[in-house]
């Protein structure tokens, strides 16, 4: 995956003894369980974790800079998945672009063309919503929880919109059945899953470079650190906010398309249901910390998948929720210590 070692050094981990102990105990427990765990589930967990990561990074950036929990984030994912559906089913066929079963993948190259469109539409939509709605509330200097409340209204309206346009039923991208790869240790992996992992690696690397190498990315981190100081340093916080929405919503749209590919279906409720693993990952990694969200996402993804060895698979969100609650009890600031958690 990513150059993780490099990244952990950069965020300057302060390993407290208690945490070290906890990690050792957890690692020992995991190692003890390992012989009993099906490796295939672990691999699936990393794929699920990839999708969670794309959503969770956006939530944590928005949390860090705008200071509220964006409850509509799941529905931004849904929106992305459906905009891509519109592209592959309606728009692209009109100009003669159709197809499925591209190489080893179930989907066709129209999905690859639809993905950037979905990203752009959802990103622009998120910026527009900020201008019409959230900005007014910020100017009124409302409590952060009112912003979260507002995002609940946005979430409901977005889902309603998806249902009006595409109806409430199950849909899917045009697809063709494909063989899965058989790897050692009884691991089976679908080519689509490899696609999901590759897209995630590329996007996470891009976000990392943006945050550490570009002027706007540094300004985003500065604003998350201290919004008032950012203001008096002359940082244009309005464009920082617009960039944050664009990146967060763009990643969410991608996550939505990838989720639709991996589940082989689209449902209007798919994003809302995904909120629990998303927030669990954000909490685990420490609110406002994008690298933490990435690690949290993989922990949640792998635990949820591995739990299906003993639990009914539909309990996956409950497993994510349980991990989050345990984390809040043990170390509410998250593994890597996020911003303010109180």
């Amino acid at each position: 995956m990513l150059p993780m070692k490099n990244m952990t050094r950069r965020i300057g981990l302060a390993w407290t003894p208690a945490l070290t102990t906890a990690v050792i105990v957890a690692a020992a427990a995991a190692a003890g369980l390992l012989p009993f765990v099906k490796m295939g589930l672990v691999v699936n967990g990393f794929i699920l974790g990839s999708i969670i990561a794309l959503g969770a990074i956006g939530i944590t950036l928005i949390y860090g800079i705008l200071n509220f929990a964006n409850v509509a984030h799941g529905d931004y994912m849904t929106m992305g998945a459906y905009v891509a559906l519109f592209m592959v089913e309606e728009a692209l066929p009109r100009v003669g672009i159709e197809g499925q079963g591209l190489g080893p993948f179930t989907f066709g190259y129209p999905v690859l063309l639809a993905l950037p469109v979905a990203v752009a539409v959802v990103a622009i939509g998120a910026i527009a919503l900020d201008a019409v709605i959230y900005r007014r509330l910020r100017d009124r200097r409302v409590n952060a929880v009112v912003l979260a409340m507002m995002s609940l209204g946005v979430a409901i309206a977005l889902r309603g919109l998806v249902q009006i346009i595409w109806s409430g039923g199950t849909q899917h991208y045009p697809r063709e059945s494909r063989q899965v790869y058989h790897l050692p240790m009884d691991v089976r992996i679908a080519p689509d899953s490899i696609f999901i992992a590759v897209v995630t690696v590329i996007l996470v690397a891009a976000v990392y470079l943006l945050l550490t190498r570009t002027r706007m990315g540094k300004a985003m981190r500065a604003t998350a650190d201290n919004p008032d100081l950012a203001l008096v340093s002359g940082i244009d916080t309005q464009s920082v906010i617009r960039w944050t929405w664009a990146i967060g919503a763009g990643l969410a749209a991608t996550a939505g398309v990838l989720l639709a590919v991996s589940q082989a279906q689209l449902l209007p409720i798919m994003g809302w249901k995904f909120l629990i693993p998303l927030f669990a990952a954000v909490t685990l990694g420490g609110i406002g910390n994008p690298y933490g969200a990435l690690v949290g996402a993989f922990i949640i993804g792998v635990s949820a998948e591995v739990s299906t060895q003993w639990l009914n698979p539909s309990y996956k969100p409950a497993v994510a929720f349980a991990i989050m609650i345990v984390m809040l009890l043990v170390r509410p600031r998250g593994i890597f210590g996020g911003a303010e958690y109180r």
Partner: protein
Amino acid sequence: MALLEASEVVAGYGETEILHGVSVAVNEGEVVTIIGPNGCGKSTLMKAVVGLVRVRTGRVTFKGVDISAQSPERIVRSGLCYVPQSANVFPSLSIRENLEMGAFVRSGSHPDRIEEMFELFPDLALRPGRKAGSLSGGQRQMLAIARALMLDPALLLLDEPSAGLSPAIMGMVFDRIQSINSAGVALLLVEQNAREALRMSHRGYILVSGRNRLEDRGPALLDNPEVGRLYLGA
């Protein structure tokens, strides 16, 4: 005409009014110190000048332009920079990134200006990749001042630059402030260490309960027995 002129400024937070009409002026190249008891509105005045607190009535002009309703970003762009008393660095950014943020209004990464800052504050040059959150109090203060100097401002506002520093470090900070001033930057200071600050100031103001109380040349205020008794703890 004064570089900065705040006249009859009324400002506050929510329903509370802190400043009931304060007037302060800073001329080109001058060091001016504001002293006064806790809660007299010194910090609020600074925040009102840089646009963090809304000016309700009264006027603030900088270089002859009314800035009382301008955004902090525009005020910074026009050459007025500010160092808050606490939380004045970006803790998760490196020293170099903090300095880059000081020059955000001008695109680019400004390596030359950063080198100049490293010459002025050699401590910062030792490990420019270090996170500001891991710096000592004195180093943070220097980084905060350096960040505010990145744009080569005409006027620098410093809110209690010596707060919480050891006497040795404090002496060094005051020394830097003087060299910044001798490079032509005007300074407006709020200081608890009033004696030290007035000694290097051209002029000083005393605020009490959100109103002007006294105004004089720095040394004259130091010699004023009433000031000494009431505000300098002599």
